[in-house]
């Protein structure tokens, strides 16, 4: 049967209010039957211009806008901002603070990957794992509530320190969680990996060659699943990551399933890191006296710095310029999910719509961060 060119392709609008677009992603699809011919992501529905708001506030106040970028991995965002701000303001956090930050960032990495796994399952039509992962995540958020007073947007860290010190009870409860968690993690992992439908929906789908990934600026678990062992925690260690023992999981399979396996292996490594950090946690002050509360708004910085950290999505970079006043002159955020999303049109050429949903799910999109 012959089609004329005009009626052959259908334009379909997916999102911004669609269950499998992880927030407010809108995709303009050009379809030939069930096959995707072209994808155009349209973003910006959650845009708040945090970069401009940062310019209007003191150095210490800008932190809360970073919490609201990647709201499922808020601790990693805070670490990213403070790495840049502390370099610019020449303030060194005490030793104990560095270890506390590592513990919080890694716990949050586990929570973020768990949410991703649950949402990814939902994308593929698996409802069961969602409840398992959210139960585990709730335990981490309960720990956060006890430590910082809030669940997600914690605003726990501050320039040169943290808001509250760890006590023995907290350390005991984190250890208790870490003892039980690996068993539950394997349970969730098996729910996915022993499911034939899950394997056939993810295996050999969305293959991303390493050269293409580098050219598009892809980082994080997505790049590691393509076989390139790039992890800022190893390549340019910040905080105390050079003093803990862990491996960077990579996979040579390059497909959606590889990204899933890499993320789960990362969670196991995070458990290892937190255990070591709890053992090595030194005594000492939990803030730098140069940045105590009454002095915080008088901090001045000059020059420009770029600090990169490994957030849950990839390389999270903050470029910061100070002009010697109490407010930053310019803050620019390198959002990993933004860069990872830009490869979606390439990956979903000539695939089925259902596979495109699996691919966009494997990117780990959080729209607070893509749109900033």
């Amino acid at each position: 049967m012959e089609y004329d060119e005009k009626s052959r392709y259908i334009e379909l609008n997916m999102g911004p209010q669609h269950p499998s677009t992880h927030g407010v992603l809108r995709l303009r699809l050009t379809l030939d039957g069930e096959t995707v011919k072209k994808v155009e992501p349209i973003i910006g529905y959650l845009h708040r211009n945090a970069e401009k708001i940062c310019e209007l506030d003191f150095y210490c106040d800008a932190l809360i806008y970073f919490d609201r970028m990647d709201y499922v991995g808020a601790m990693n965002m805070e670490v990213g901002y403070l790495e840049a701000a502390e370099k610019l303001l020449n303030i060194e956090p005490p030793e104990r603070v560095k270890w506390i930050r590592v513990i919080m960032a890694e716990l949050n990495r586990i929570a973020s990957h768990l949410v991703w796994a649950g949402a990814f399952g939902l994308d593929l039509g698996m409802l069961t794992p969602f409840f398992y992962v959210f139960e585990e995540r709730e335990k981490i958020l309960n720990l956060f509530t006890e430590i910082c007073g809030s669940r997600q947007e914690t605003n726990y860290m501050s320039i040169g320190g943290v808001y509250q010190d760890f006590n023995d009870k907290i350390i005991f409860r984190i250890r208790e969680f870490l003892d039980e968690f690996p068993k539950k993690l394997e349970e969730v992992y098996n729910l996915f990996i022993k499911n034939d439908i899950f394997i056939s929906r993810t295996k050999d789908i969305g293959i991303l060659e390493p050269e293409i990934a580098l050219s598009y600026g892809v980082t994080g678990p997505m790049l590691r699943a393509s076989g390139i062992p790039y992890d800022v925690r190893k390549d340019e260690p910040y905080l105390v990551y050079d003093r803990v023992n862990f491996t960077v999981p990579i996979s040579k399979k390059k497909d959606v399933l590889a990204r899933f396996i890499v993320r789960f292996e990362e969670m196991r490594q995070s458990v290892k890191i937190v255990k070591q950090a709890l053992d090595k946690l030194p005594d000492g002050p939990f803030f730098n006296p140069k940045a105590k509360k009454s002095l915080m708004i008088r901090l001045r910085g000059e020059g420009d710095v770029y600090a990169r950290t490994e957030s849950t999505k990839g390389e999270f970079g903050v470029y910061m310029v100070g002009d010697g006043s109490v407010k930053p002159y310019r803050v620019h955020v390198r959002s990993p999910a933004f860069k990872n999303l830009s490869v979606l049109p390439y990956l979903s050429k000539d695939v089925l719509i259902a596979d495109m949903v699996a691919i966009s799910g494997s990117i780990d999109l959080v729209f607070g961060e893509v749109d900033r």
Partner: protein
Amino acid sequence: MTYEIKEETGKDGRKVFRIGRDHLLELMKDLKDQGYDHLTLISSVDFRDRIELIYHLEKSSDNFSIIVVKTETKDTHIPSVTPLWESANWDEREQYDMMGVIFDGHPDLKRILLPEGWNGYPLRKDYDMSKVQFVNMDEEGNDYVSFDPGDGW
């Protein structure tokens, strides 16, 4: 090499190349040939009389070590590096959207985060934040930006 680069060290200890706008593409091509295959980010700073562009490049064969290239423009025009790195595509669209830098040679230069038709560039220092803009719909369903909340279809 037919161009001049000023070499300096940044506050964070990274190597910085400062170059004029005319020779930017030649330098970028040379750097890509040297193995800098990962363009991490393009950022821009508005210094009122000029706009400075900052490129961070990473070398995958050398533990992703960073090199910084800085250039500046007075009339907001700059050559695009999208032919060299695909990741520059969205980065340059973002800088055009936020700072109003026009990248010559970019395949599809349009706004990315803000709707088409937005007035002004928010990250410029002279952007007027007191004027509220409203996004409505026009008759064809596209975004329609105006200063009047009741305007539009």
